[in-house]
């Protein structure tokens, strides 16, 4: 099978259409299982009580938000290097999901921090760099939306995604440095050895976040493909088939 066959939007579109429900079902199954284990099966934490349970959402969201930025940088590099339109579509399809996970990570972090650290916001190194990552996502989305010419928007977004990806480790390093200069180590959850049940719940939630991102970004990529390829025959036919209302499938 020629892998590059699917680098054409026309062949990728139906493939993505078949994959979306599959990933969505997997995401739902993992989320239900993970949240059930996390909230009902896993025992209370010896130190933190019930509060810690939010970690199942928090860790998955934080992982995803960082990973998605890496994937965006990857597709940007592929797009700029090989000139494939689909890579740029994928980059733009991923960005809102990454920003959303970034926001969830910050929000759940604040909810966890209030009872644990005694404050909604602590200038902790990881929190702060997560906030800056959110700004990078916003910057990418704002830039690609502000440019009217789609081809310029594609490449400009790819450039800023790559520049951001180079800077993410630097930002993280500098913020860690700044943090140790300003304040002592923040309160860390006692006894880092997690019960294996908790670990399972966390892994399942991470998998759910993973499948969710795949499903949503592929669905979004399909919309972008239709919008951008509307001048081609097949896309025009597909748009006509789906009708002006834009049925889900």
């Amino acid at each position, binding site marked *: 099978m020629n892998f590059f066959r699917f680098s054409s939007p026309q062949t990728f579109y139906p493939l993505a259409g078949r994959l979306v429900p599959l990933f969505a079902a997997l995401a739902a199954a993992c989320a239900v299982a993970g949240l059930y284990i996390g909230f009902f099966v896993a025992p209370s934490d010896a130190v933190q009580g019930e509060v810690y349970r939010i970690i199942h959402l928090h860790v998955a969201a934080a992982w995803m938000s960082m990973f998605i930025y890496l994937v965006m940088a990857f597709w940007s590099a592929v797009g*700029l290097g090989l000139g494939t339109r689909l890579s740029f579509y994928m980059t733009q399809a991923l960005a809102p999901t990454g920003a959303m996970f970034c926001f969830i990570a910050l929000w759940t972090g604040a909810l966890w921090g209030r009872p644990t650290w005694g404050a909604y916001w602590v200038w902790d190194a990881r929190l702060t760099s997560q906030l*800056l990552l959110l*700004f*990078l996502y*916003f*910057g990418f989305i*704002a*830039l690609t939306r*502000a*440019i009217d*010419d789609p*081809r*310029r928007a594609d*490449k*400009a977004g790819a*450039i*800023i995604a*790559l*520049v*951001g990806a*180079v*800077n993410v480790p*630097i*930002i993280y*390093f*500098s*913020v860690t*440095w*700044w943090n140790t*200069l300003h304040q002592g180590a923040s309160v860390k959850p006692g006894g880092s050895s997690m019960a294996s049940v908790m670990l399972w719940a966390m892994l399942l939630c991470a998998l759910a976040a993973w499948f969710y991102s795949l499903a949503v970004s592929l669905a979004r990529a399909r919309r972008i493909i239709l919008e951008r390829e509307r001048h081609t025959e097949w896309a025009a036919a597909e748009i006509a088939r789906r009708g002006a209302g834009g049925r889900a499938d």
Partner: protein
Amino acid sequence: MTLFVHVLLRDLRLAWRARSDLLVALSFFVIVASLFPFGVGAEPERLRAIGPGVVWVAALLAALLALPRLFEKDAEAGVLEQLLLSPEPAVLWVAAKIVAHWLATGLPLVLLSPLLGLMYRLEGAGLGVLAAGLLLGTPVLSLVGAIGAALTLGLRGAGSLLALLVLPLFVPVLVFGAGAVEAWSAGMGVSAQFSLLGGGLLAALALAPFACAAALRLAAE
């Protein structure tokens, strides 16, 4: 190389002719820095504690304010297109423009910073550390900012978009620059911060002109 020198001298001459613009950016730097005592109080201890950070943040904002002018005039006048059409490598004249921009907008900030440091009760060598940090850091701001300026060239709302794009990238420079003065006041060495700023400057010098040239090609298409 002659192209580099020509573009550099031309941009410096243009900057000199529009020197009132440069003065506005400089006044902005001074005003922002002198607003803080009104907000947080003027006890010498507090001033000394926030001084380096305030001067650095003001320098960041002043650098941001000056960025849109980097390519705007040339894009309007069609100079940018002509330069892109020339057979010389774009990286050369892009670097020259950034250097000229830094000499016109960044260097005055560095020279003025000891005065602001005095307003914040920094003393002696601390002032030198502040200025030296800015000397290493402001070129990074110009280089990284130039990418953002090129990407937002000619867009609506370019100014605020530029802020969103480049301010998160300026954070490391702020951390190490202001951190150097703080470390100095605490009696620690500043070689670590200065090495990191210098390393950042070299990396930005090596990479930013390429990204900037690519972004300018997009803008001119």
